């Protein structure tokens, strides 16, 4: 009880200080003589935001860029492009890079395709809002919570099918008689091979199972956006195609999909950026990147903070930045094209 009161006291105090400063500054600005008064008022309105942007984003970004050229626990030793070279030559680092590429490819395409599928088939179906809400619900959950939910699905305990509490392992063992080959108890999240294949290019089974989680989360977003876009396709257009002799399938692929092309690009780029920065899932499901599950964003954290290699971490941040820029650019251009009428 005391703790709860203390919590709300902290919140109230924090907000009061913040509001107090803001209005105090405005009051001070109002005491100034013209023309300073108006300028000071403008400063009170935009000043805090600009200060945060310059001090919190612009200067730190430049600093990070510089840091990426150094090494050492406090990044004091000049290393040139060494960090970048290390990323592309060291085999462990290449695994991180490989994983990230697979995350991006699989999660982006599958979530978008699931979104398109549901948007198509749910349209004007009985119970459409409920079905869509169910698929959309995971979007609200934290990635940590999602990781635990799926940890539970993937959990394995011994080899007795009847004692399994992980849904996947239970199904796997129960289906043994039906499926070809012998299904054995499997620790999915520790399996670094691609379903038995040991390859430098393919992601581990564990990574695949983690990617399923982000698909689970992102598909709802894709569904909602694409569904809205498809509802915006004029009925006349589809009906005209039908009269011209198109089947359902043809009408969908030739008319509806091209019509919502811009929205598909928006969904894909948005998902891509979210996936590129995946961190929480690796922390929750891959024990922070063990068993070859790390990704760029996860490695950025691990190297920068627990491992105290800020130079390398800064380099990874720069790589993320460089990867995001063209995606945002494509998205922005695409959205402008949509606004100006495809």
């Amino acid at each position, binding site marked *: 009880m005391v703790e709860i009161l203390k919590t709300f006291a902290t919140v109230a105090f924090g907000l009061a200080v913040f509001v107090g400063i803001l209005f105090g500054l405005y009051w001070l600005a109002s005491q100034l003589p013209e023309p300073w008064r108006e300028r000071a008022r403008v400063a009170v309105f935009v000043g805090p935001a600009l200060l945060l942007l310059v001090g919190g984003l612009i200067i730190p970004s430049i600093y*990070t860029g510089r840091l990426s050229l150094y090494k050492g626990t406090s990044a004091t030793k000049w290393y040139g492009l060494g960090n970048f070279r290390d990323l592309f030559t060291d085999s462990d680092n290449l695994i991180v890079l490989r994983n990230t590429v697979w995350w991006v490819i699989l999660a982006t395409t599958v979530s978008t395709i699931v979104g398109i*599928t549901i948007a198509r088939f*749910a349209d004007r179906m009985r119970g459409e809002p409920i079905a869509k809400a*169910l698929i959309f619900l995971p979007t609200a959950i934290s990635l940590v919570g999602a990781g635990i939910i799926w940890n*539970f699905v993937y959990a394995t305990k011994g080899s007795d099918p009847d004692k399994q509490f992980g849904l996947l392992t239970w199904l796997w063992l129960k289906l043994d008689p039906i499926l070809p080959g012998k299904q054995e108890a499997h620790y999915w999240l520790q399996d670094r091979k691609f379903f038995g294949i040991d390859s430098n290019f393919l992601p581990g089974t564990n990574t695949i199972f983690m990617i399923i989680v982000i698909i689970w989360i992102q598909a709802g977003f894709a569904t909602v956006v694409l569904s809205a876009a498809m509802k915006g396709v004029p009925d006349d257009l589809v009906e005209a195609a039908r009269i011209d002799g198109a089947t359902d399938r043809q009408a969908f692929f030739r008319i509806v999909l091209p019509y919502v092309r811009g929205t598909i690009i928006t969904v894909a780029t948005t998902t891509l950026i979210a996936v590129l*920065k995946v961190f929480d899932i690796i922390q929750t499901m891959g*024990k922070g990147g063990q068993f070859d599950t790390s990704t760029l964003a996860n490695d950025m954290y691990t190297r920068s*903070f627990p491992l105290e290699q800020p130079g390398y971490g800064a380099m990874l941040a720069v790589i993320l930045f460089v990867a995001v820029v063209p995606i*945002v650019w494509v998205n922005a251009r695409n959205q402008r094209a949509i606004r100006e009428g495809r």
Partner: protein
Amino acid sequence: MTAATIDPVTDAMIGTPKDKTPVGTKAAKRLSSRKGAIAVWVIAALWTVPTFGLLISSFRPEEDIKANGWWNWFTSPSFTTKNYSSVLDTTIGAKPFSDFFLNSVKITIPGAIIPIVIAAFAAYAFSWMRFKGRDWIFVGVVALLVVPLQMCLIPLLRYFNSDYFPLNNGVPAIWLAHTIFAMPLAIFLLKNFIGSLPREIMEAARVDGASHMTIFLRIVLPLSVPAIASIGIFQFLWVWNDLLVAKVFGGGAANQPMTFAMVDMVGTKGNEWQLLTAGAFITMVVPLIVFLSLQRYFVRGLLAGSVKG
């Protein structure tokens, strides 16, 4: 994505009149089919089962959870709330789990309100105040949307740790970090909204004798409630669900939110599923309430926020 493009999406989610074309008309049958509907319901079920299983399990006694799967609950039902009481008392880094819930509250409320307020002030200035270079500065703010927050973690942590900085690591540092990272998107979205309010209303208020602060508080804020609610809810959930920012700026376990506690628990108590299921569900309660009660605003905010850099 602009605030203006969000509306149709939201309405489709909630169900607009267009949505409610009576079943059986020609148009209603257009591209969907029975097989398609079955596929949709199968996917919807697949999507729901994991969460549902977690929820059921969190109410099963420890022995049951560890003995067999939650689907056995249908044949041999059992119910307890003990998991919830024990997880709240479970200590992580010498603090009970309940403290982490309070930490999440402590971090999230100001972490959502402060950036929205600052961004709303800035958005008003970019829309309705006159100053030199206004439009160019705004373009610069929008350009910052591409900066991933990872670019700023190391230097910001160094600032926050330095002797000259008034905020030591802790909750205020997390507030500040979230405020910084929310800034470009919040300003961009709010400017789109506030800038599209009718010019004549602002002028009428000025003629009536209102100062900028009065116009902002008495007219612009009340009119921006839908936009602020959407963006505010998105920011609220973003902060509530965040792990990275808290982990980097929060210092020790004392200031960490529930997401941190859960990750820690997965590492140290990975097999204590009676705790993990209940704990996970506690972290999800607030977002689920928001989702179920404020779906319209939630969707709008999420779509607006999905471009977060």
